[in-house]
C-alpha cells in the first residue's frame, strides 16, 4: 500500500508541476500567438483590398454556406470593399480563398489562404500567373494544366461568390 501511495504521489507531483509550468508558458505565449494571427490577417486583407486603411468584421451579414467570414474594407470610414473568405473543395481537401470585391463588383485582389493540394501540381493555384486572371471583371479564367480539379474548384467558387454575394455599399 505504501508503495502504491509513493508511486501515485510521485506521478501526481510531476503532473502538477508540469501543469503549472505549462499554464505559465501559455499565459505568456498565447498573447503573442494571437497577435501574430491578427497581423497576418490584416496583411492578407490589405493584399486583397489594397486601397483600404482599416478593416472591420461584418458580423451583421449572415454568412451563406461556404463562407467563413466577411470583412469590410474602410477608407476614411467609408466602405470601399469587402473581403470574403470562402471554402472550395479541392483535390486534397478544403481550399480557403480570400477575395476582395469593390462596389463595382470587381475583384480587387485574391489570395489563397490555406490549401492541401499536391505540391507542384494543384498547389500551383497559388501562382501569380493563375491568380492575376481574377483581377477586375474577368470574362473567362483558364484552368491550370495538370491541376484541373484544384484550379476549377477555385474558379467555380469565386464565380459563385461574385454572382451570389449579398453586400451593400453606402
Amino acid at each position, binding site marked *: 500500500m505504501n508503495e502504491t501511495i509513493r508511486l501515485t504521489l510521485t506521478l501526481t507531483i510531476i*503532473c502538477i508541476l*508540469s*501543469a503549472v509550468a*505549462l499554464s505559465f508558458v*501559455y499565459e505568456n505565449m498565447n498573447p503573442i500567438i494571437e497577435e501574430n494571427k491578427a497581423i497576418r490577417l490584416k496583411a492578407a486583407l490589405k493584399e486583397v483590398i489594397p486601397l483600404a486603411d482599416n478593416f472591420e468584421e461584418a458580423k451583421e451579414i449572415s454568412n451563406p454556406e461556404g463562407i467563413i467570414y466577411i470583412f469590410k474594407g474602410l477608407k476614411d470610414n467609408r466602405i470601399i470593399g469587402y473581403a470574403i473568405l470562402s471554402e472550395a473543395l479541392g483535390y*486534397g481537401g478544403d481550399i480557403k480563398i480570400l477575395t476582395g470585391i469593390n462596389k463595382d463588383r470587381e475583384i480587387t485582389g485574391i489570395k489563397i489562404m490555406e490549401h492541401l493540394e499536391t505540391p507542384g501540381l494543384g498547389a500551383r493555384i497559388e501562382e501569380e500567373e493563375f491568380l492575376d486572371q481574377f483581377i477586375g471583371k474577368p470574362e473567362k479564367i483558364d484552368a491550370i494544366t495538370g491541376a484541373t480539379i484544384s484550379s476549377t474548384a477555385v474558379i467555380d467558387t469565386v464565380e459563385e461568390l461574385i454572382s451570389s454575394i449579398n453586400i451593400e455599399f453606402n
Partner: protein
Amino acid sequence: MSNLITIFIAAAFINNFVFYRFLGICPFLGVSRHIKSALSMGAAVTFVMVISGVSTWLIQNHLLDRFGLPFLQYPAFILVIASLVQLIEMYLKRYHSDIYKTFGIYLPLITTNCAILGLALLNSILKYNFTESFVYSIGAGSGFTLALIIMAGIREKLEIAPVPKPFRNIPIALIIAGLLALAFSGFTSLRFG
C-alpha cells in the same frame, strides 16, 4: 452515413496513415517481416486506436475545452494512451491470455507508436464529433493494418531474394514502402460527389 463512409475510406486508403501521413513507421518497419506478426500488430494497434481515440476525444471535449486548458493536451493525451495500453495489457493477460499471447511484446510498444498519438491529435485537428472520431479511428487502424500486411507479404518473398548486403533489411524495406506509397497515391483520385 455517407459522410462516415467517406471518413473511413479516406482514413484507410486516401490518407493512409503509413503511406500518406508517415505515422507508425517504426513498427511498420520493425514488424512487417511476417504476415502473422503483421496481423497481430495491426489488430492490436486498431484496438488501441479505437479505445484511445474515443477516450482522448472525451478528454478534449469535456475536460480540456470546457476548462480552457489547451496547453495540457499533449501531456494529457500521452498519459491517457500510456495508461490505456497498460490497462489493456493487464486485462488481456488476466482474462484473454490467448489474445495476450498473440499480441505478445507488441502491446507495450504501441505506447510510442506515433500513429496512436497522431490519431488522437487528428481527431481534434479535424474537429470530428464523437461518431466521426470513432469511425476515423477504425479507418486509420484498418489502413495501418493493410499497409503492414501488404508489406509483410512482400518482405516474406524478399527473404529468399538476393538483396545486396548494404540494402538488406531496412533500406530495401524503405524503397518498397516508397513504391507502395506511389501505388496508394492513386487513391487520391477517389472522389465522392
